[in-house]
C-alpha cells in the first residue's frame, strides 16, 4: 500500500484491508430507549442486540417509527441510552466520538459556505485550519463528480448534489464508522439510483464500517454486506442476514434472480415484523 505525499493524512485509495474480526467492532447490548414526553413515555427502542464487524456495510430496514433513527443517534452519542449499552472500538458510547462520520436525511449544509468549505467544515471545527485536508477534499469531491462545483453555494445545487456534498463531508475526517440515516429518501428514483451507484463506488475504495438506514429494500440489498430488519414497536431486530454478492457492485446486479429473491425474502420478513406487534 502506497501512502499519499501528504503523509499523515491517509489517502482514500490506500486504506488498510479489513482488520481482525474476532472481536466485534460495535456491540449493541440490550439497548432500550424511552422518550419522556408531555403525553407520557414512548418506548422507541425496546431491546436491541447485535454486533457489527469492522469493515461491514450494514443496512437497517424497518417500518416507519420503529426507532431506527433513535438507534443511530444513540450509536453516535447524540441521544442518551435508557438502558443497556453500546460499545464502539472497545469504548462505551457516552458522547459524540471524533472518529465518526454522519450523513443525515437532510443534507444540512451551511448555506453561506461553499461546497468546499462545507466538506471541510468538520476539520475547521476540529483543527481550526483546513489546509492539510484540501487534497482529500478534492479527492472526495472528484469521486462524486462535484469538484468543479467546489465554489458554488448549496442552493445552486440539486438535491442529489447536496447529498453528495454531505457524504463527502461525512468522509472528510477519515471516520472509522460512517452513520447514514436515510440519506437518499428525499431524492427521486433516478437520482437515487445514481446515488446508490456513487455510494457503492465510494465504498469500494473507502471500505470502512457503515451503518445505513433506509426504507428501500433494493437499496439495502444493493449496498450492504449485511442487513438487519427491525420490527414495529416495541422494536427489536427481528431478522439478520448476510449479503454475499461480489464487489464491486454493479447496477446490472439488480436484474439477477438472486437479487430479486433476496428482496422478496426481505419484504416478507419486514411484513412479519410488522405483524409481530
Amino acid at each position: 500500500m502506497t501512502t499519499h505525499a501528504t503523509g499523515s493524512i491517509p489517502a482514500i485509495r490506500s486504506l488498510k484491508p479489513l482488520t481482525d474480526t474476532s472481536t466485534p467492532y460495535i456491540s449493541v447490548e440490550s439497548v432500550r430507549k424511552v422518550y419522556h414526553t408531555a403525553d407520557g413515555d414512548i418506548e422507541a427502542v425496546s431491546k436491541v442486540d447485535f454486533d457489527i464487524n469492522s469493515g461491514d456495510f450494514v443496512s437497517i430496514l424497518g417500518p416507519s417509527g420503529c426507532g431506527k433513527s433513535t438507534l443511530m443517534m444513540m450509536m453516535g452519542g447524540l441521544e442518551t441510552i435508557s438502558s443497556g449499552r453500546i460499545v464502539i472500538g472497545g469504548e462505551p458510547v457516552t458522547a459524540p466520538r471524533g472518529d465518526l462520520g454522519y450523513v443525515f436525511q437532510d443534507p444540512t449544509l451551511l448555506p453561506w459556505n461553499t461546497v468546499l468549505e462545507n466538506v471541510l467544515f468538520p476539520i475547521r471545527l476540529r483543527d481550526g485550519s483546513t489546509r492539510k485536508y484540501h487534497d482529500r477534499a478534492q479527492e472526495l469531491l472528484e469521486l462524486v463528480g462535484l469538484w468543479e462545483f467546489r465554489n458554488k453555494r448549496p442552493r445552486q445545487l440539486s438535491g442529489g448534489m447536496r447529498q453528495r456534498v454531505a457524504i463527502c463531508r461525512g468522509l472528510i475526517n477519515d471516520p472509522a464508522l460512517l452513520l447514514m440515516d436515510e440519506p437518499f429518501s428525499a431524492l427521486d428514483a433516478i437520482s437515487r439510483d445514481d446515488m446508490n451507484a456513487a455510494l457503492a463506488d465510494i465504498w469500494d475504495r473507502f471500505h470502512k464500517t457503515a451503518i445505513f438506514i433506509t426504507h428501500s429494500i433494493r437499496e439495502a440489498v444493493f449496498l450492504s454486506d449485511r442487513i438487519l430488519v427491525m420490527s414495529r414497536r416495541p422494536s427489536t431486530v427481528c431478522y439478520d442476514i448476510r449479503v454475499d454478492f461480489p464487489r464491486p457492485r454493479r447496477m446490472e446486479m439488480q436484474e439477477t434472480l438472486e437479487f430479486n429473491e433476496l428482496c422478496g425474502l426481505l419484504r416478507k420478513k419486514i411484513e412479519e415484523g410488522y405483524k409481530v406487534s
Partner: protein
Amino acid sequence: MTQSQMIQPAGSSAMTVATPPVGWKLDPALRAIILPAVTAAGLIALWEAAVPLLGIPHVLLPPPSAIAVRLVQLFFPLILQHAIPTILESLIAFVISSILGVVLAGVLSSSKIVREALYPNVVFFQLIPKIALAPLFIVWFGIGSESRIAFSIFISFFPVVVATLAGLDNVDRELLRLCKALRASEWQVFRDVRIPFAIPYMFSGMKIATTFSIIGIIVGEFVTSQAGLGYLILFASAQAETELIFAAITVLCIFGLVFYGLVAMAESYLRKKLGS
C-alpha cells in the same frame, strides 16, 4: 426515460403561455423601481396643482415648487449648517445602538440565566412610552449632543436586539445536531452557525434602527435645541415659515432614504459575500 421526454414539451409550452401580455414586458426589477417612482411623481404633481386650484394659503401648505425654491435658496449655509449635526448625531446613535443591540442579543442568546433575568425586563422597558422620557435625558446628560445621542440610542437599540436574537435562536435544529455530532464548542456554534444565520435578521433590525435613530435625534432637538434640523423646524414654525419647515423635512427624508439605502447595500454586499 420516456416519461421525462414527454414532460419536456408540456413544460416548454406552459412557459410560452405564462409570458405576460405585450405592453407589460418590463423587467420586474426595473418595474419595482419605476412603478413607485411614477406614483410618487404623480402625487407630487397633484399636490402642486391642488394648492392654487383650491386656493390653499402657502402658510398652510406650500406647493412642492415653492419648497424646492426655498430649499435651494437656504440650503447654503443655513439648512446645511443645521443638517450636519443632525446627520452626525444620528449616525453615531445608529452605530452605537447597532453594536449595543448585537452584543446584547449575543449575551442573551448565549446565557440562559442572563436571558431569563434580563429579557423580560428589556421587553417591559419597551412598553414605556419612550418619547416621554426625552426630558429625563437632559436632566441626566445635560443639554449637549450627549443627551440627544443617548436618547436616540435608547429608542433605537431595541429593534436590533429583538431581530438579532430571533436570528440567533431560529437556527435550524438539524444544523445544531450536526454541530453536536462534530463536537463543536458553544463558541464555535456561535461563530460558525448562529452568527451567519442571524445576519439577515440583524440587518432587518438595523434598518428599523436607521429610522428610529433619526427620530431620537429630532425629538432630542425639539426638546433642547440650539442647532439641528429639529431645531430649524421648531424655529421655522415659530416664524410661520412653512416652506422652510418642508425644506428641512425634505432634507431629513433624503437623509433617511440614503441612510437606509446604505444599510441595505451593506447587507446585500455581505450576503453576496456570504452567499446566503
